[in-house]
């Protein structure tokens, strides 16, 4: 068998077309890195409030209008906001207050403490139907003045310390609900992080992390409270936990680049570097590797038939099953080598375009079992990913060999396999997330063949799947495809070639 595999590898590696494919890989990687689609190139800068327009609208409003107070709030808050210069920390601090993070069934407004107090003041002063007590109004005035003082003192730490103090006081209120207390504690933790890790209000990646942490934390609390258990909620909960942990880790370690390994950028100020491009290489170039795998596997039998060398192969002292298995193993070995080549090319190209410095930082991941962040050598991480993808490559190769044995049209086999792969990766993957289809979807091979969905304790999108189940499904498909291919190939008559 080893000699048979050696023969197959000689046939593959001595073909010019194989090196043409490697050249195509280099070109695709170079172009992709040069275009750098992951890098966010559009930055949203919030504009100053248009006070004149707000005041004109306010003049025409009736005092009993339900938006009367909020309109006045916008004016007063807007005046405060506009009074500070562009790019000042004060503007960013007030801008943070002005960004909404509403979620279902969970209070999220405690970071808007200035607005909250200003609303109390305005409501008391201008609302004829106000329920605000005088003591509450005086307290709100005092707190608001303290905030304005802190803003004018140009000391962001004093401002943050004031926020923490006021929020802590609220937690001690007897009327507070448990959800409100939870929300307050989230905000207190966030502001404490600012102080502890020296993160001023600014338009940078650290503030992106804080904003992302805040929104994901609230979303997590909302999902946990809903107590639903379908796959969409599970996926959301998983994603929120991951983001909260990674964002906190990034702040603790002052990591000024995007540490998510998602293919889609989530932060405005992400800096795509060589490291993150290397980590995302499987996500970016998986389809290329699969296409190469399909080409190599489909031509493996088809070319032997077309050129007549199949009769040389079948008149040697080997069982036909051994011949098929050796072809499958040789194709998988070739795919492994091609993938390693892809990683190497990405390493070099990424380093040339973005610089090699970022490679000194490893992969930063989240362990869902221990709920902790960990670091791992970049190449160890990529090798782990490759191992996890091996079942997928095995099954794709076996399927192609199976199709090639059943028919003589190699081009049709290649196209058909690509189409099936594409449909399974997109349409079937989407349908599989629908709860009603889960009992059927869990048996689809494409939902089971990528073991990276279980890496580091991850829970797959289809939450009924487990690693042992996926292993069984993969084995069943592999054995069935291989068994049918061997049976058909063993009985096949070799006629005019």
């Amino acid at each position, binding site marked *: 068998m080893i*000699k*048979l595999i*050696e*023969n197959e590898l*000689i*046939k593959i590696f*001595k*073909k*010019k077309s194989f090196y043409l494919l490697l050249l195509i890989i280099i070109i695709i990687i170079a172009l992709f890195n040069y275009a750098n689609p992951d890098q966010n190139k559009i930055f949203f800068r919030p504009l100053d409030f248009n006070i004149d327009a707000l005041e004109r609208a306010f003049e025409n409003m009736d005092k009993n209008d339900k938006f009367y107070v909020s309109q006045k709030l916008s004016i007063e808050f807007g005046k405060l906001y506009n009074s500070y210069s562009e790019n000042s920390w004060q503007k960013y601090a007030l801008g943070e207050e002005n960004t909404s993070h509403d979620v279902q069934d969970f209070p999220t407004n405690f970071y808007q403490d200035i607005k909250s107090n200003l609303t109390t003041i305005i409501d008391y002063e201008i609302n004829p139907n106000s329920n605000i007590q005088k003591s509450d109004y005086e307290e709100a005035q005092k707190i608001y003045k303290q905030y304005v003082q802190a803003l004018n003192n140009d000391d962001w730490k004093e401002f943050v310390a004031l926020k923490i103090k006021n929020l802590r006081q609220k937690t001690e209120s007897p009327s507070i609900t448990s959800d409100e207390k939870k929300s307050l504690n989230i905000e207190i933790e966030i502001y404490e992080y600012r102080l502890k890790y020296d993160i001023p209000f600014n338009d940078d990646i650290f503030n992106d992390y804080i904003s992302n942490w805040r929104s994901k934390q609230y979303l997590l609390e909302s999902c946990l409270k809903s107590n639903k258990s379908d796959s969409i909620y599970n996926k959301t909960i998983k994603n929120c936990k991951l983001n909260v942990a990674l964002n906190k880790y990034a702040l603790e370690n002052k990591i000024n680049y995007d540490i998510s390994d998602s293919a889609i950028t989530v932060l405005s100020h992400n800096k795509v570097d060589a490291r993150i491009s290397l980590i995302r290489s499987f996500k970016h170039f998986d389809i290329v590797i699969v296409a190469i795998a399909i080409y190599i596997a489909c031509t493996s039998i088809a070319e032997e038939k077309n*050129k*007549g*060398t199949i*009769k*040389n192969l*079948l*008149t*040697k*002292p*080997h*069982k036909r099953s051994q011949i098929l298995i050796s072809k499958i193993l040789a194709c998988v070995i070739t795919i492994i080598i091609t993938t390693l080549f892809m990683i190497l090319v990405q390493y070099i190209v990424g380093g040339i375009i973005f610089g090699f410095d970022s490679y000194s930082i490893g992969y930063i991941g989240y362990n869902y079992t221990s709920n902790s962040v960990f670091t791992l050598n970049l190449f160890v991480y990529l090798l782990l990913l490759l191992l996890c993808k091996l079942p997928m490559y095995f099954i794709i190769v076996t399927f192609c060999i199976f199709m090639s044995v059943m028919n003589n049209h190699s081009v049709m086999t290649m196209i058909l396999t690509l189409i099936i792969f594409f449909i399974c990766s997109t349409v079937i993957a989407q349908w599989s997330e629908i709860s009603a289809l889960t009992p059927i979807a869990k048996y689809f091979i494409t939902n089971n063949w990528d073991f990276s969905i279980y890496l580091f304790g991850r829970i797959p999108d289809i939450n009924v799947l487990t690693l042992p189940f996926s292993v069984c499904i993969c084995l069943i498909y592999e054995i069935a495809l291989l068994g049918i291919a061997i049976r058909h190939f063993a*009985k096949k*008559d*070799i*006629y*005019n*070639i």
Partner: protein
Amino acid sequence: MEVLKCENLKKKIKNKVIVENISFSINSGDVVGLIGANGAGKTTIIKLILGLIKITEGTVLINGFDIQKDFVKAIDKVGAIVESPASYMYLSGYDNLKIAANNFKNIGKERINEVVKIVGLENRIKDKVSTYSLGMKQRLGIAEAILNHPEFLILDEPTNGLDVEGIIEMRELIKKLSDNGIAILISSHNLSEIDKVCNRIVAIKNGKLVADDTIDNFKLIASKDSTLEDAFIKKVGGTDID
């Protein structure tokens, strides 16, 4: 020693009988010519012997091993060129032989170099097969067929594409191999070559075996001093006078 034994071989595809009642044997040292008109069933018989197509009825024993039940043992000491030699065109002649050698135990560089010398391809063996002439491809096919020291050799049109010198060398090679006890089955339309190298004839007509005899006895079918060609026309090519 009986190297090949075919008994009541039959091949049927759907409802059409391609060959039937084919029974003959070949012993060590025999050089048997398989002759017949185009479409008579010669290549079908060769493919049945080699296991390239499934036998409908009958048996094929090579060195006592049934080709259907013990394929690996049966085919181990067999070398063959079927229809035309097929090589990997993008590889060199040497790489093609290396791939062939890998299918057998104990066939290394020395044996490869030896067969290259036997077929006279020393100067071109490192070149890609796509640059070979038809004759060179034929020589390469023969080199591959004799690589594993076969006890039974099947050659389908072995002189195809060879020049006069090549044909003479092929004749001498066949004689040398048979003198060493190798059983050889040659399928060819070149009756003069068959006459010169073979000691026996198996003749096929319309999928049936019509003669299995020595060359001399086969010639007597036409007349006492007839050529092989005369006998072929009488027995295989047209109406059987007998």
